[in-house]
């Protein structure tokens, strides 16, 4: 165990398609997180921004963009970009600074203003960029990869499209209780079945949208939290942000092929979780709730197995038993997940930790997991990025 830090404040700007600058969302979330912590801006010693590649130069230097908007205060400033794991790498950077004694109070912010439609690569003729190659040669969008994984589950484990639809139904029911969700509304299986097929076997309602939104956390040393009067704060106990290990068994987007001899190797998603459990000194049996990256409904079932909540191939069984729904044995995505939010890339991994914070504090209202004491997040994105965070109280 490398040490714990406290989560003193957590907040979001609601997800949606608001058509405004990501800076507005980020500052709104940051000010709310500071209010939640009972701290003023001048208590912050370090600002860590999760970068965005969709908002021009200010997005590339998100940390300083937010610091400037909040009022330049000679704080330490950091920006990290790691695709979908940007938010958790921002948390990791803040944690490292706190544990190293460089600062006691860090403000972590991720915000996005998302474009319409499929995410597409940068412009230009760039055959050395795997992201360019997959679009150029195959037209392989992210949903195409999700569909390949989904079909593979159907062939190997007997999962059905009805199982996938039930993931949406479950997550939408939780999201209906979440004021920060973009789609706070229940969905039934017939609505999923009636939505258009995007990439066989996945339909529009199986696939997460892209959204605007922001999330922020005030992270402090345990000492600072105690001095500030927080006797029993939520603590971050592990942040895993490792790369995959060679050879990779996964067909990992944006690559169009796997490594040779990768068959049988531990999948990247499971590697991420294993590292987090190891760091936290905990195992799957200790987990009360999980926030996982349901880029598609089927992918949520892969996460059950990667997190060790179900044996390989048995994710759907867990779902069918109702174990992962609110009120079940181990609720997954009590926030409503990406199904209810849509992905706001730099904010999403931070939002997962916000949800754990509220769950562990008992502040999650109608979507509260009773008595939750330990939570885990997991996420994955382009170019071998992924993360898993363990929080306890």
């Amino acid at each position: 165990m490398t040490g714990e830090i406290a989560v003193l404040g957590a907040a979001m700007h609601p997800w949606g398609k608001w058509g405004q600058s990501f800076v507005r969302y980020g500052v709104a979330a940051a000010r709310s997180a500071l209010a939640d912590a009972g701290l003023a801006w001048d208590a912050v010693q370090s600002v860590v921004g999760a970068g965005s590649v969709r908002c021009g130069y200010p997005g590339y230097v998100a940390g300083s963009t937010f610091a400037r908007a909040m009022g330049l205060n000679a704080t330490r400033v950091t920006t990290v970009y790691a695709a979908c794991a940007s938010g958790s790498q921002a948390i990791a950077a803040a944690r490292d600074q706190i544990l190293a004694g460089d600062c006691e109070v860090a403000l972590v912010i991720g915000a996005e203003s998302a474009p319409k439609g499929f995410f597409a690569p940068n412009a230009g003729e760039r055959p050395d960029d795997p992201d360019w190659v997959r679009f150029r040669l195959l037209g392989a969008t992210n949903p195409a990869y999700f569909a390949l994984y989904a079909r593979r589950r159907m062939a190997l484990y007997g999962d059905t499209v009805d199982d996938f639809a039930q993931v949406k139904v479950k997550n939408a029911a939780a999201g209906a209780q979440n004021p920060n969700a973009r789609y706070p509304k229940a969905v039934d299986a017939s609505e999923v079945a009636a939505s258009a097929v995007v990439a066989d076997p996945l339909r529009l309602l199986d696939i997460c949208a892209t959204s605007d939104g922001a999330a922020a956390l005030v992270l402090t040393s345990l000492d600072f939290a105690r001095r500030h009067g927080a006797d029993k704060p939520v603590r971050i106990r592990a942040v895993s942000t490792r790369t995959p290990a060679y050879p990779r068994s996964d067909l990992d987007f944006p690559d169009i092929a796997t490594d040779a001899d990768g068959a049988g190797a531990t999948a990247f998603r499971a590697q991420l979780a294993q590292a987090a459990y190891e760091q936290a000194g905990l195992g799957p049996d200790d987990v009360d709730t999980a926030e996982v990256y349901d880029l598609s409904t089927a992918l949520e079932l892969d996460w059950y197995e990667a997190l060790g909540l179900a044996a390989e191939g048995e994710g759907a069984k867990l779902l069918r038993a109702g174990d992962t729904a609110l009120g079940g044995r181990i609720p997954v995505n009590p926030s409503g997940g990406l199904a209810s939010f849509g992905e706001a890339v730099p904010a999403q991994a931070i939002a997962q930790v916000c949800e754990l914070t509220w769950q562990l504090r008992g502040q999650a209202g109608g979507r509260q997991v009773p008595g939750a004491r330990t939570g885990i997040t997991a996420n994955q994105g382009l170019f071998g990025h992924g993360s898993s965070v363990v929080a306890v109280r």
Partner: protein
Amino acid sequence: MAPTRTPAVAGLFTEDGDPRGFRLLGTRCAACGALFFPREDDFCRDPGCTSTEFIEVALSPRGRIWSYTDCRYPPPPPYPRDQDREWEPYALLAVELKEERIVVMGQAVPGVRTEELEVGMPVELVPGVLHEDADRVLTTWHWQPERATEGTR
């Protein structure tokens, strides 16, 4: 003048008239033998190997479907397509090569529908055309399902 034939991305498959026939081209690390597709010419990705020398190899042209899907909506650029023509969905396959045991994605030959496909079905590599207009033909590879004799499936 006939439109010029150009690979949609250079260096990934053999050119017309190659004595090896139509094959995907990968590279093997000269030191440890690790295989890479798309080709790796700079650094061996095996963490225990520091080699920077690679030998081009033609990959086996047969495999089995690892998984499949289709693209019902037009992908964004740089996918080349005629904006004026109505979008025709195509099947997209991930195929585990018989000899190398790596999974390689590719479009199915035009006209293949996902209803006809199954995980584990044998497929064969064939030359294909990704896009064609007055000035150019962009070439690529396609996967051709080895269909069972008609009527017996």
